[in-house]
């Protein structure tokens, strides 16, 4: 069902604006290195925002394949920053609990965020292990040689690094949460 307020919702997220200027030229899709994997490639995703196809788009895998390479952004003839729009769609998918289980990227992002919040710095090994435990522990086995290589080359410390004023950072982030998301 079409949801006419969807486009306003996207525009309300910082970076989501300017979407109304899209002329559907397809430069974004043509430039995207991962477009072949998207349920709805960038041009189509933008058309769906304007058509109000909210739940179909937010539950798709589309924006989760954006690698933030910004090629579409520098090429867009209307300066609408498709990369930022994809990030806004990701925020909305998470906020509304619409991302489905087959999308592993949001799980990884959440593990990353938890790690950054917990210590003030990202603990890469902990983040990776948590991600694989939450998605597919067997995939971790396949990647074991990569992890082992990093470990043996002293690139995967076993202990997290924590900032001194972690209390300060938590107070800032708690306040942000209380303010209820970016407007």
């Amino acid at each position, binding site marked *: 069902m079409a949801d006419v307020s969807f486009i306003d919702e996207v525009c309300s997220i910082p970076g989501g604006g300017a979407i109304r200027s899209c002329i559907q030229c397809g430069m974004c899709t043509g430039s995207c290195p991962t477009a072949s994997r998207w349920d709805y490639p960038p041009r189509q995703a933008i058309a769906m925002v304007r058509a109000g196809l909210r739940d179909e788009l937010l539950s798709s895998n589309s924006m989760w394949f954006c690698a933030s*390479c910004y090629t579409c952004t520098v090429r867009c003839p209307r300066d609408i920053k498709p990369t930022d729009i994809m990030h806004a769609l990701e925020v909305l998918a998470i906020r509304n609990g619409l991302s489905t289980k087959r999308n592993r990227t949001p799980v990884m992002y959440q593990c990353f965020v938890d790690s950054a919040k917990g210590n003030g710095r990202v603990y890469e090994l902990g983040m990776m292990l948590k991600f694989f435990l939450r998605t597919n522990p067997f995939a971790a086995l396949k990647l074991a040689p990569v992890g082992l290589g990093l470990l043996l080359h002293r690139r995967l410390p076993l202990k997290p690094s924590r900032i001194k004023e972690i209390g300060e950072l938590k107070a800032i982030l708690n306040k942000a949460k209380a303010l209820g998301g970016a407007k």
Partner: protein
Amino acid sequence: MKNYSYFPGCSAEATASPLGLSVLPVAKELDMDLIELEDWNCCGSSPYGSVDKLEAACIAARNLALAEKTGLDLVTPCSNCFVTLHGANVYLKEYPTLKEQVSEALAMASLDYKGRVRVRHLVEVLYSDITPEVIRAKVTKSLKRLRVASYYGCQLVRPDGFDDPESPHSLDELVASLGADVVSWQLKAHCCGSSLVMPEQEVALELINKLLRNAQENGAQCLVTPCPLCQINLDAYQSQVNRRFKTKYNLPVLFLTQLVGVALGIKPDALGLSRNIVSPMRVLAPYL
């Protein structure tokens, strides 16, 4: 001596430790004083901005507020930290409501950000402030006949880089200043898949394979990049690419500062050369 506030980023302490290690002695040789930002926190990176925009702006802004107190430019060697911190800076200017909310949150830690910090990528500083000419004059071991493919990746040059976003030249000039032969190749600013390598490995391996093939076909003996994500994908995942596509790449992938360090005569240990997964020792042997 030029002074900068220095933001290493989380990777420089871990998966990109060869970067974290090599930046400091190189900076010293080039008369740059990189003063580590006291108690810096994770920039938030791309994932945070895809989960919660306000929290992402706040976690980046704590760093900007701390840096503002120093009065110095904030320099990071990490392309993802650069895009994130620079992007937060732009958003705080463009979205007054966001700025107000961030100020309210920062006040919880008695911090304030007025928007005066200039966020810069280390490569831009090396190129614009130090300049390839000065680096050339300091080279003690010219990398003559070493064929190097400069890999810019994405976030050094897009969306708001200092170089051409699709046909950049700054890294090539820096590499040329070391005496090396700059390999001309088409994919020098194409995407490696970045962090998708974890959740969507197949996509990333395909992109990494294209990059390695293109660099090799054009005669590269090694690649050089400033970006932690690019380096890990091309270096640590090279064996996975070989297994997946039945290829036989054995291409060392150095951080720019490692290569600069070799040319400046800095000892391999201080540059973390033994930490590269694909060993660069064979191709670098004539210069060590």
